[in-house]
């Protein structure tokens, strides 16, 4: 028997939009993605595990929460929402999700960073499901602005979503794009800032304090909402509202997150970006995740 709140999307049993069990469903998916991401890191120690763990709930909400329109069997489908992963380093947690939806074969997950694989430590658009080149920081938002203008010119309803890292905000090109998006009223553009507050060498506040972020974006004519980036319910409700809201403003969700979320040793380490986890440590963490 299939419960009426469930439906099948690309072979995956998902909850319907109005289901009250939505949050519980997304939370379970987040635990699964976190485990799968750690398993990838086990075989590919070059991957940036701490950065990949801070955006797990964001990816889960986009894909399993059906915030995004997409078709894994036709990755360049015209009607898809464009999702630009600007913080490329932290996108390993998207690999298990894309494989789960059939963007590529699940067997590929065992070949991350291995010879001949298309799944590297930092994903590029050679990976089905990735729109742009992401390894170098500070490019995604500007490209997204161009896509946004293109969709508006064609009177299309699809949205452009961007995952931005807070460390990326040190790149001047990001601010050129922030200024542009506000001025051009790009309200089909929704940016989620993975505000994990740690760069490679230190906490951002110890390098150059990025705060006050809300005021800065508002001054550039953006619509800003602050959410807990690990709370799938908040993420889901805000994204669902913001993608439909046409108020002549680009939208920013400042998603407050913890770098290395789920791994206590990383959560409090200012150098977590460059830290790897040993296999036995991963076993312990996975056993404790729920």
């Amino acid at each position, binding site marked *: 028997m299939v419960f009426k709140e469930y439906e099948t999307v690309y072979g995956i049993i998902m909850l319907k939009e109005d289901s009250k069990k939505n949050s519980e469903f997304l939370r379970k998916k987040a635990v699964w993605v976190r485990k799968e991401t750690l398993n990838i890191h086990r075989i590919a120690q070059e991957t940036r595990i701490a950065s990949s763990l801070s955006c797990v709930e964001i990816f889960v909400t986009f894909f399993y929460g059906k915030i995004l329109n997409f078709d894994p069997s036709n990755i360049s489908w015209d009607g898809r929402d464009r999702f630009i992963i600007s913080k490329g380093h932290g996108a390993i947690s998207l690999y298990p999700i894309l494989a789960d939806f059939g963007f590529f074969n699940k067997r590929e997950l065992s070949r991350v960073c291995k010879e001949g694989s298309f799944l590297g430590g930092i994903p*590029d*658009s*050679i990976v089905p499901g990735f*729109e*742009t*080149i992401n*390894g*170098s920081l*500070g*490019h995604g*938002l*500007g*490209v*997204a*602005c*161009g*896509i*946004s*203008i*293109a*969709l508006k*010119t*064609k009177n299309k309803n699809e949205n452009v979503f961007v995952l931005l890292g807070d460390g990326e905000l040190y790149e*001047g*090109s990001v601010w*050129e*794009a922030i*200024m*542009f998006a506000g001025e*051009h009223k790009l309200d089909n553009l929704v940016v989620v800032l993975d505000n994990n507050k740690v760069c490679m060498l230190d906490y951002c506040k110890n390098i150059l304090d990025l705060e006050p972020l809300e005021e800065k974006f508002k001054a550039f004519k953006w619509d800003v909402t602050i959410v807990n980036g690990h709370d799938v319910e908040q993420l889901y409700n805000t994204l669902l509202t913001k993608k439909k809201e046409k108020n002549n403003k680009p939208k920013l969700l400042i998603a407050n997150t913890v770098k290395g979320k789920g791994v206590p040793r990383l959560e409090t380490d200012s150098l977590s970006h460059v830290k790897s986890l040993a296999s036995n440590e991963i076993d312990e963490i996975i056993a404790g995740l729920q």
Partner: protein
Amino acid sequence: MNLEKKTMRDVFIEHIYKRMHKDENIFFLCADFGSPKLDLIREEFKDRFINVGIAEQNLINIATGLALEGYTVYAYAIAPFLTMRAYEQIRVNLSLHAQLKEININLIGVGAGLSYDVSGPTHHCIEDISIMRTLPNIEIFSPSDWVLAQKFVDYSIKVKKPKYIRFDGKPLVQIYENIDDVELEKGFIEIRKGEDVCMVSTGYMTHKALKVAEILAEKNITVGVIDIFLIKPFEENLFFESIKGYKNIITLEEGFINKGGMDSLISSILENNKSKILLKRMGFGDSYTFEIGTRDYLHKLNNIDEESIIKNIKQILKGEN
């Protein structure tokens, strides 16, 4: 025929403007840089013209987003800032992307070489050929006159790849009389045939090469002139066929020499063909020019003026090279 003097950019933009009437797929972006003809586009196509501000990095990124959605995009700025301020944007979003996806982005850089003579070294553009040649998947167009620039309009729409178009900033007299005679894909034209020596030039220096050839012709010295306008891709075999009869080649460019510019292109062709032709490179040495003066004055300072070219040719003919 009465030869006309025009700027490459005005001729090119005027024809893009005409195309924009029937081709809704064209976007024109600029980094706060204009031209009299651009005003036509600015006024008439407000929905497909964007001035991104003095922000070359964002210019490239916005152009990429539009091109990924299928638009033919022109991104217009001052050449040194377009290529060098935004070099990594060009590398990531044009060069890398174009290997995976079809994107038609045309970077129009104005101010090739020493076009902006008195503006000083920040505005001199003498690195662009070297650095843009390094990037895979990008074509380089370096015309010597507005006729070539006009001819390139069709090509820029038809060939759906990233391209770097380097225009001179000054109005220059046309070299080519009939646009139909130009075979753009071939990439070069042997304008004058010579005996022992051939000058191979690009952009503004082709005008200098022609002047030198005329002066020497009066003294019964016949030197060849080959104008290269499509630097990448380059028809290496066709080119070698054209030069293999010469004993000496002199490359002339408003760019650094021995650093991957046009001289390096010619040098590698000679090497690939195990040629015995002797090569003399003329361009800028390993320094910038802060001294202010006209283009001719700056050429003289850097030993690439007409007199220096003639001196080199005479030495070569005397066997002193």
